[in-house]
């Protein structure tokens, strides 16, 4: 299963059982700025897929009334797959970082071009850093508060690694540019 949206929806079902419309609302709130639904109806397609793969199941007794709202919960297989996916995703991020560094190195003979890329990458990082909110101590619900803190700290620590790397890369390419003069 490749769709990031499917995995994110599975995660929300793991967090707590929900029905389709509720999931769509929770998705928009939880993944704002990270993932986007093509439409609310997409949630139902995704739920079908997850159910067919045995990752979620309907909660018994929730398909009742004139307008039934079947609620879904995660299966043990769904939880296992989700954990595996998280690790795979992180490995993919490591690979992407290495790839970026390797691809930048093609400019060894044209250091000014690399410096231009570094400048723009640095600007993007600074904007991301500036947009990272300072966490207030005001209490939110436990899960939302934890998610906010984890996301915020991850952004900050990632930035704490990227900025020195940008500094380092800039020095390397500047030295190359100076050597060419």
């Amino acid at each position, binding site marked *: 299963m490749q769709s990031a949206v499917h995995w994110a929806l599975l995660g929300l079902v793991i967090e707590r059982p929900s029905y389709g419309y509720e999931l769509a609302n929770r998705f928009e709130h939880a993944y704002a700025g990270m993932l986007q639904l093509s439409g609310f109806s997409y949630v139902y397609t995704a739920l079908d897929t997850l159910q067919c793969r045995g990752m979620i199941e309907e909660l018994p007794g929730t398909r009742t009334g004139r307008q039934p709202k079947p609620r879904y919960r995660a299966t043990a297989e769904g939880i296992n797959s989700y954990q595996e996916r998280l690790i795979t995703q992180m490995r993919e991020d490591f690979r992407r970082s290495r790839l970026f560094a390797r691809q930048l190195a093609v400019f060894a003979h044209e250091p000014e071009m690399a410096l231009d890329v570094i400048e723009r990458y640095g*600007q993007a990082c*600074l904007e991301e*850093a*500036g947009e990272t909110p300072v966490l207030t101590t005001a209490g939110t619900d436990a899960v939302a508060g934890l998610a906010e803190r984890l996301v915020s700290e991850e952004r*900050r620590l990632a930035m704490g690694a990227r*900025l020195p790397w940008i*500094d380092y890369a800039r020095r390397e390419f500047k030295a190359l540019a100076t050597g060419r003069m």
Partner: protein
Amino acid sequence: MSLLELERVSKYYGQLDERVALRDVSLQIGVGEMVVVWGMRRSGRSTLLRIAAGIEAPDTGVVRFEQRDLQAHPGATLGKGIGYCRKRFAASEGQLVIDQLVTGLVARGVPLSQATSRARAALERAAIASCATLTPAELGGSETVRAAIARALAFAPRLLLIDEPTIGVDLLERDAILLLLHSLAQEGIAILASTGESPGLSGARALTLSEGELHGRHAPELAEVVPLRPTG
């Protein structure tokens, strides 16, 4: 209009000016804006703050505060518009935290009773009033930062400069310090901080300083001016 403006500022150290601290740095800060400059050690970030405060003069370039050239009016703005947070407390300036604030104010001609009430208000604003009667040596990491901020606030600055506000501060206290700085900015006090840590950049206009060169958005982002009536 900028509150603080650095125009093509350079600063060199060493007998032959061989060490570049700042190279052709331009920066504008607006009223109530929070700007944080990230840099590695020896990147020039502390020099940038000292020059912005008027403590040091640039070798080339101009620094203006409220459109006044700092070099033309040396010492005229530090303590009178610009607050520079020093985290060191000299024993000669008082035994207790509140004494440290009062001494600075009295030394600048503020009557003692007025100085005491201003010091108390500043300690209150920095949420450190409970430590007023402690000695600086008794303060923890975040308390020292808050006391330093309070000492600068006592002079009612319009620009606050602070070097490494979150260094040595407990992880859980870090955001509270940043929130304090943001709240001061919301009250209209511009903040220029330097940091070697990425957390300090949160919610601010962030720039980086590398080998004395400033990278990032040098001026505040101004809203596009839309004419009320189409011209022409």
